[in-house]
């Protein structure tokens, strides 16, 4: 059963990487993406959520808005999660800013959900920012 999951995950990822899977994930405009819904591991399954993370993080990188938490980029969360699913590891080890493993780790489902939410949030925030940034400019939208 475990092997079957691994094969399914690997196939899904291979499809995404090759571009064949892109039509299987809905692509609404970036400001209407619902991270909570899209990244729910329980309802969508860990492989699907990881596929979503890969898809949206790719766009976030292209737009220059990829998230990074402490020393770890979202790409590293994704790679760590992919490795864990491949090897059957239960936890993803967190990396420091030099890319070296730390003593801390999170469960695979937590890492996948975080990677997905980070990818989606980067895009929704980018879209939102286009309409809100002027509100902080003195002499423009910012009043005091």
């Amino acid at each position, binding site marked *: 059963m475990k092997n079957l999951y691994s094969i399914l995950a690997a196939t899904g990822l291979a499809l995404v990487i090759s571009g064949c899977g892109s039509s299987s994930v809905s692509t609404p405009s970036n400001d209407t993406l619902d991270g909570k819904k899209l990244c729910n591991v329980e309802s969508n399954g860990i492989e699907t959520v990881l596929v979503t993370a890969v898809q949206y993080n790719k766009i976030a990188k292209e737009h220059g808005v990829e998230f990074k*938490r402490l020393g770890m980029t979202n790409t590293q969360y994704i790679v760590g999660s992919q490795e864990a699913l491949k090897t059957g590891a239960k936890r993803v080890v967190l990396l420091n800013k030099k890319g070296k493993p730390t003593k801390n780790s999170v469960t695979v489902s937590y890492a996948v959900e975080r990677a997905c939410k980070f990818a989606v949030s980067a895009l929704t*925030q980018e879209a939102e920012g286009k309409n809100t940034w002027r509100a*902080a400019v003195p002499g423009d939208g910012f009043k005091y």
Partner: protein
Amino acid sequence: MLLNIVKSTALVAFTSCVLHAGEFNVQAEKDRIALGDYMVAKFKDAEKNKDKFFPYSTDDELKNNIKKDIPLEDFSMGNYAFSIQGQFSYNEIKDMPPYEELIEQGEEIYNDNKALQKCFPDVTIAGEYPYFDETKKEVVSLTGAINECLVSAGQKKWNEKKGKMAFVQSYFAYSTTEAEKKVDMKITSADAAAAYERGKEFYYTQRGYLKLSCATCHVQGAGKRVRNESLSQLVGQTTHFPVYRLKWGKDKVENGLGTLERRMAGCVKDQGQVPPKTNSKEMKELLYFMAYMSNGMNVDGPDVRK
């Protein structure tokens, strides 16, 4: 008669060019003045204006740590312009600044490198970078210009954040400060104005998993405290680079001096986002906007920060 027509035409053309060139910085000037007015108003009397500008600060902090009536020019000192306690330790460090020997190293590197001497015959140019290159249609940073100079002479690029790059820039900054020059930013075309606007948008846009903009901390947040640090203000933020940060130099003095790009990359990381590459269009346009906000202020680098 013909000569008069030629002269008049030339005069009209020249005047038109000058007026037209002046138009492109209208928005940037409005932004710079509005920002300066905001900072001056904010720090006029922090204690009295607590509700408006510092609702979460303690009375004691506002009374004993934030100076009053700060003139615009003083903001080039960063948060030491208003932080009484910060200025006390700053003055002590400045008695014997840790970057002095690094300026000397920068001067030696410059004097030993003919390519650099050829590309930068005048070393008092720290206030003129970054600028918009009308031929290349892009912003040129001092870091980028130095590396381009090295590469064109068949030499290897330097690290864009520290080391030789920061040492030579500190020599340029020191020489510019000694020459009492000011930040001299220009916006003379629609392309330059567009680059400025993109830099401005980057600065004011919330980003990263913490959803912070640069302005959250350094415009609206300027003067507020994070842990034990008072946040510096955007006005004057670029006048003193490269800076020696005690944090960077804790293991090795040579690592303490860093370029503005190094600092900005760190800031964007703190917001929770992968920072733009040091010599990327985004980074250079961000620096262009920031430098414009300090236009006309004295260059006073290099300097020391925590």
